[in-house]
């Protein structure tokens, strides 16, 4: 049983060193599919992230989310959510 090479006593006649030689085309196809799939998945994640952010800013107000100067101070999402819930309760009450 072996996956490729079983002797290095004659290195002049050794070529490919990797296991399972002969499946290079399959490896290339799998690799390209993984690459394309990665782009699709990354785009989907980014779209979901922005959709969630937009929904949050709609509820709490973009100006409030901008925080102090929009640069130095980054408000926490939990804080926004709690504030929005409180506002909802007040509004419904």
């Amino acid at each position, binding site marked *: 049983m072996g996956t490729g090479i079983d002797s290095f006593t004659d*290195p002049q006649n*050794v*070529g*490919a*060193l*990797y296991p399972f*030689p002969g499946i*290079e*085309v399959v*490896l*290339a196809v799998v*690799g*390209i599919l993984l*690459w394309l799939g*990665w*782009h699709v998945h*990354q*785009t989907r994640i*980014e779209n979901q*992230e*922005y959709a*969630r*952010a*937009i929904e*949050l*800013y709609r509820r709490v107000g*973009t100006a409030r*989310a*901008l*925080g102090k100067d*929009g*640069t*130095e*101070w*980054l*408000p*926490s*999402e939990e804080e926004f959510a709690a504030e929005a819930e409180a506002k909802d309760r007040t509004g419904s009450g």
Partner: protein
Amino acid sequence: MQNQVESLTVLFTEFYYWVTVVFMFLIHVGFATYEIAVVRPKNMQRTLMKTFVVIPLVTVTFFFFGWWIYNAFSNGPGITGGIAEGAGETAAPWSELMAPNLEDRINGVFWAAFLLFSWTAAAIVSGALLERVRTAAFLIIGTMVGSVLWIIDAAWGWHPEGWMVQVMGYHDAYASGVIHAIAGGATLAALIVLGPRIGKFGPKGEVRDIKPHNVWLACVGLFLIFTGFWGFYVACNIPMLDIGPNGESYFSATNIYLMPTTLSGITFNFLMSFSGGILAAYLVSRGNPFWTFSGGLAGVIATSAGNDLYHPIQSMILAAIAVVIIYKLHFYVERKFKLDDVVGAVAVHGYAGVFGVVTAGFMLWGYPAAEPVDGVSAWFTTPDGWPAINPLGNFLGAIIMFGLGFVPIFLIAKLLNRFGLLRVPRAVELVGLDVHDHASAYPYFQGRTDGDGIADEERALAQSMEGTARAPVVPGTPGAVAREDRR
């Protein structure tokens, strides 16, 4: 390998390229550092991810098809001259030579050296688009530039048998056009479609300066890029090759076209062009740190096409001239066309790259471009019948390089924009790319505290200078104090 001389040559060459790859990693440490520094804190983490993740994407795609493109598309004109012989055996992703193999020791390190150039091409585009481009969009654009576009032009004009070299006499030893002009063209195209950051231009079109959040870190990043640039320069050479005539041995380093140069010579020119660029940038920008550092980079890029052959003082002067031109052009284009290039990438890489290619055509007029390929007629030839470097070939070459970046990326950016995938939503841009999914980049940063004594004294001194802006004479100041210029 059968004998010691052959073994030493091959193993030295293998190690040489391996070392260049390690050096070139520093370019990307530098890119990451300075891009993070120039954005506002609300965008730092997304910026880092965008800059970092394009590296593995260009790597895998350069394995899948980039390296094959370089080996396949040297015939011309364009990509219509047929696939070059041997490209598949060397560089197809299923080739046995694209893996550990005792029959070949150069392919992997040569692939990696070119790959690091590819990372650079992609990274150049990144900086200009900061703070508003979608990560997904940049990753697609960066992969196109890094693994497709630049490597097509490298096959055409950065290969001893490339059609631009053989027919036009194109010469671009250290990639002024092949990497920098094409990446500059791609960046300009993406910028046109993407538009400026919110607030960059006022209601009357006036330009506003959105400052880096950390100037010194931006400069450290550029310093790291310079350091990595050494790896870039030497990776553009063949370290040891027998170029003797008629069977006589003469060993030398060569440029990418297999024409003789020396590592010593390019060391002169790298440092002198770097210096010429910095000195000119300091004057023209009136000591602006970011532009002074960037001027060094632009100076090297603006002379790279001919830095295998220039005199160091020629290199220094050309770098200085180029930096003044690209600096003025950057701000003219910004004002006139309302383009918001965050790091000046179009100027530092695109304009400087074009300058480098065009001037090399004049400066090296009549030099041999490469050994001729049988059956190919060059526009201009040397007395030996070799394709000759000339102004027309390099001028058209510069247009090809810039255009090969600009046109495809303009179309891709338009397509991404059509589906709303190019730019982040305005509310997200306003609040910050990091805010909704990441904690603060500086969670314990509380802003300035002015409670120490020095700050109090400074404020008191400033108040005493109200209306005069002159320091009053303070009796009892310890030590000697030089006189203030009262003109």
